[in-house]
């Protein structure tokens, strides 16, 4: 009885590890998609409505859900607390430390480059930078989706197989 319970626990634990690794991949897709959504939003707010950046960021918190929404909230709080620090500095610092966004170095760099243009130049220059970033982010989303399709199920199955293998070894 103890052996059966132990085996079940072991298989359950390794499966859970496999599932969590797989969910990291799926949440990366979600986060990158919400960045895409945000880029569309700021393109129209900055490019068409000429909305000040602090207002755009505040509105974005409601418009963008999930982890990236929380990240935007942090940026907005930073802007409020430090009105005499350029947005690019606040943005770069937050991106660098936001491990929960699970961004890869290239993705971080792309967003940091954009952050150093937002609010600093005229609307046209910002629109161009947003569009350029959008193209890069679309490519990141594609890669993340492929990773998820390719590796997501594999990690789950690996978790189960590892559990079973360990049970066999221990028995």
């Amino acid at each position, binding site marked *: 009885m103890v052996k059966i319970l132990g085996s079940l626990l072991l298989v359950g634990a390794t499966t859970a590890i496999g599932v969590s690794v797989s969910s990291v991949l799926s949440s990366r897709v979600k986060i990158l998609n919400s960045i895409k959504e945000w880029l569309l939003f700021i393109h129209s707010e*900055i490019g068409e409505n*000429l*909305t*000040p*950046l*602090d207002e755009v960021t505040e509105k974005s918190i409601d418009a963008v859900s999930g982890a990236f929404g929380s990240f935007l909230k942090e940026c907005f709080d930073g*802007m409020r607390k430090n*009105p*005499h620090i*350029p*947005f*690019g500095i606040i943005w770069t610092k937050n991106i660098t430390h936001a491990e929960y966004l699970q961004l890869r170095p290239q993705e971080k760099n792309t967003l940091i480059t954009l952050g150093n243009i*937002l*609010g*600093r*130049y*005229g*609307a046209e220059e*910002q629109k161009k930078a947003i569009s350029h970033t959008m193209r890069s982010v679309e490519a990141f989303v594609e890669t993340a989706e492929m990773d998820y399709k390719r590796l997501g199920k594999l990690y789950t199955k690996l978790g189960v197989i590892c559990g079973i293998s360990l049970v066999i070894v221990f028995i």
Partner: protein
Amino acid sequence: MTNDRGKLLKYGQAVEYLPPRLRSEAMKISEDEKVLVEEFRLRGGQGFSVTIGGRERQLNIGSSVRHEELQTVLELATRSSVHAAQSSICEGFVTVVGGHRIGLCGTAIRNGGIINGVKELSSVSIRIAKDIRCADDEIMSAIVRKGRFINTLILSPPGFGKTTMLRDIIRRLSDSGIRISLVDERKEVAAKSKGIPQFDIGKHTDVLDGISKADGAMFMLRAMNPEIIAVDEITREEDVAAVFGISNCGVGILATAHGEGPESIFARPLYRKLYDLKIFKKAITLLKNEDVFSYKITEL
């Protein structure tokens, strides 16, 4: 002492718009000098200076001012929203919290003869706002008789403090309970930032800015039912027409104009009609003798 504290506060506010490297240098100068500083001046590829008594003094920053630093001033002045301040940038300056004025110079972007913006900044000046109380009791008793305001024109050459005098007279009239509409075409008098005047212009003053004096005066007459309309710098034909418009509506006028005195200004054809029709009854001429300011009140 209190006045110095106020000036130091303003200095501290203005310094916040400088890039970090220059900010720390600007904070190093003595307090005695800080209260005298009129503006900061940054020139791309050149030095960083403070203006005291109309003269520039270079501060040692080690190397020349970089283009990115000029852009940072603009970014800070617009609270990271350069795109939202485009109309102000087209006029060549941005007014920031505290009433300080950030002047911009670079390559003008023109579209059909109209300036659409300024790119590639080459110089930036930060003019430190000073809330100066100069409308004394003698002035006030000359322009208000038995509770009635007498149409007044403030005269002086540039740099003698016409706008400061106008602002302080508005404050005193307004605080005495008179309803004043200020048409602040160049956003210099009230220096509104996010709808809040950055200078004390009194409790009963309504401000309309970014509009021509003629259009603004008519707007205020319809919208705010003023007892006095105040305008800064009558310089063009249409400004004079606006003054006629206001006077025909039975509303008091307080205005400023460039000129060394009533004789010289009314000799010019543009202003002659104002004199002939006796629209202004008083003139306050601002005088400066070796950095000492004074004024002269004339009955017109």
